[in-house]
């Protein structure tokens, strides 16, 4: 029964995908630890959005005639596999370092499993505390890979699981018994009808579309990963877009309002970009002074990774617009998103024979290194040209977005 429950768990497909991808990553780079950590981040974020990762059980699972503990156990197994499968693949090569990554994410999972987050009943402070605990554990384990620390973390994880096990009711609850106080709102600021006055009033729906705990965690993860190894931060490109994948959908209802489409576009494009810049600014303040085998300074990395990622995110978001504009299927959209990424990597392919300090470098190390060196080592006119190209891409996409007759495929489907 446990295996059947595991098979139908919404997060199980991610276990399969990870199992398939992990050996490929092992072949790809000799610096795979950061890649793997970034991969974990991405998987947690993606599984969270598609598989109700943060919930102890979905509505479907709660309706099954099974004890809550059985369902909970199956979820714990799935999520543990999520961390353990790629970790086991990497374990022979990286030993304690990969164990540290695995255990860090196990802490995150254990903390999440103690919550009662079904149907928004998890208190906000607990989510923040659990996020902080995860980051502290990850940082501590990365920097101080001591046996006693591993044992201590394992003990905490076991204690959390045991505590949750004893507290589980016979059937899952979709709402907490705890009652929230009703906030009494003051009289809202008013503006003359149709005037559209007040920056905050006009932009509040946009702000509310992305404000949440994900940006806090995203920034923390970027900064922490950047502090461990600068190249790793580049792979958080997987993490942030996944956390913001719903941003488009959460803003598209404004299409039906007299909100300028330019503003919608600017917000949807701007939020991930701003997040990246902030994240990498933090990364620059905390990172080490080497990128792989290359010595670099903090300022160098801050500026260059921010710029390089601006380029990548702009491309990804642009492809997102194209996909929606052209009414393509989701799979075609993914292909179109992957194309520019592949093109960027292809640019580096002829340079893969580059050696650093007399030592042959891995593909990913060269990619991260060259991407950052590319933007600083260019003469000023070329940098300006790059910036103008970016602006041009933005304006083109904005124009394209403004011209679109049908804002998104989902709306079209519902209309049909």
């Amino acid at each position, binding site marked *: 029964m446990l295996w059947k429950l595991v098979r139908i768990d919404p997060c199980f497909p991610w276990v399969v995908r990870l199992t398939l991808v992990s050996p490929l990553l092992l072949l790809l780079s000799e610096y795979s630890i950061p890649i793997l950590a970034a991969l974990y981040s991405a998987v947690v974020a993606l599984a969270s959005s598609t598989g109700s990762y943060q919930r102890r059980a979905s*509505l479907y699972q709660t*309706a099954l*005639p099974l*004890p809550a503990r059985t369902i909970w156990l199956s979820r714990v197994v799935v999520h543990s596999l999520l961390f353990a499968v790629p970790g086991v693949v990497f374990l022979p090569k990286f030993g304690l370092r990969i164990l540290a990554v695995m255990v860090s994410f196990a802490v995150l999972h254990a903390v999440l499993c103690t919550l009662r987050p079904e149907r928004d009943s998890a208190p906000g402070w607990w989510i923040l505390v659990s996020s902080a605990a995860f980051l502290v554990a990850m940082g501590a384990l990365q920097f101080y890979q001591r046996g006693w620390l591993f044992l201590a973390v394992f003990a905490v994880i076991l204690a959390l699981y045991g505590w949750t096990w004893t507290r589980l009711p016979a*059937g899952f609850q979709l709402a907490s018994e705890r009652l929230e106080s009703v906030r009494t709102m003051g009289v809202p600021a008013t503006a003359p009808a149709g005037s559209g006055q007040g920056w905050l009033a006009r932009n509040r729906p946009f702000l509310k579309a992305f404000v949440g705990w994900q940006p806090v965690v995203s920034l923390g993860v970027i900064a922490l990963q950047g502090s461990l190894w600068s190249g790793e931060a580049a792979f958080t490109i997987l993490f942030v877009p996944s956390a913001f994948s719903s941003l488009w959908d959460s803003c598209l209802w404004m299409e039906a309002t007299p909100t300028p489409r330019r503003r919608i576009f600017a917000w949807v494009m701007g939020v991930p970009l701003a997040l990246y810049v902030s994240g990498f600014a933090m990364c620059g303040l905390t990172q080490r002074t080497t990128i792989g085998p290359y010595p670099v300074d903090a300022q160098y990395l801050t500026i260059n990774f921010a710029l390089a990622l601006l380029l990548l995110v702009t491309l990804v978001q642009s492809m997102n617009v194209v996909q929606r504009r052209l009414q393509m299927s989701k799979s075609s959209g993914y292909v179109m998103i992957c194309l520019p990424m592949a093109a960027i990597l292809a640019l580096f392919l002829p340079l893969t024979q580059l050696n650093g300090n007399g030592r042959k470098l891995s593909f990913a190390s060269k990619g991260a290194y060259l991407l950052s060196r590319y933007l600083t080592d260019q003469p000023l006119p070329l940098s300006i040209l790059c910036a103008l190209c970016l602006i041009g891409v933005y304006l083109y996409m904005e124009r394209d977005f403004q011209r679109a007759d049908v804002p998104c495929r989902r709306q079209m489907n519902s209309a049909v």
Partner: protein
Amino acid sequence: MQILQINNVVRAYRRGVPVLDGTSFAVEKGEVVGLLGRNGAGKTTLLRILMGMIKPQSGAVRVFGMDPQLQPVEIKRRTGFVAEDQVYPPLCRASELLLFHRSLYAGWDNAMEDELVSRFGLRRDARISEMSKGEARQVALICAVCHKPELLILDEPAGGLDPAARREFLETSIQLLNRAGTTILFSSHHMADVERIASRVVLLDKGKVCIDSDLDQLRETLCIAVVPLGDTVTVAALEAVLGCVRARNNGHSVHGVFHGDPDEVAARIAGALRVDPPPCQNVPLEELFIEIVGR
């Protein structure tokens, strides 16, 4: 024999804002009960309390004589449940889901499963993510009924479906009900569906049972009077008239829902308010619903 007993149930999500505020009613074996109410009236909360998914803060609930909080698994074994937002694992194939449900219930009826799959024209190898909303709901119905539940709980089961899919879904439910003698409790905003399926309606308003009546009796015994506003005609005055269930101001007139024969009610109003006998008539369920729970 009472399958469901709900006594004075109170449930709130926020302090001082009860969703259910002393809800009480019971359902006999074999009854088909439509649970009505405006958005936020507490229908979904009540159905989830019956499934043991939400704990009431006070009051008592018994399903098959058992407490859903103490014996949820036993209750779920004997119950089928379909909710509007009950999302099945999107990558699961229909065959995998059916196989899984078959393994959960001892009384799974393979013949019924085959019949329904062919009737709906479902592909067993199709994934949930590849199905239309209606097809996914049909899979949910099959999963909910093929173990021949004694109680079927449907929470807005046909919400979001087109009229044809909705009709097919509900007709299947009725046929299965007739065949197996299942008790059905369902919530819906489609009054036509309620009139077609239900034998009894329970109307929730502000967390309380506002009307609990046999459907035919409801149509025959309730009527609506439309009284033009005047010096003696106010909402309060109309509500004070004998047999008034609810009155509301509708601009130039006051609409009142009354128990009794229309002619008799008109005479009663005329006598009490000293006005000409107002027009009174029996109306469809939808009109009654609007008059009773409308603002």
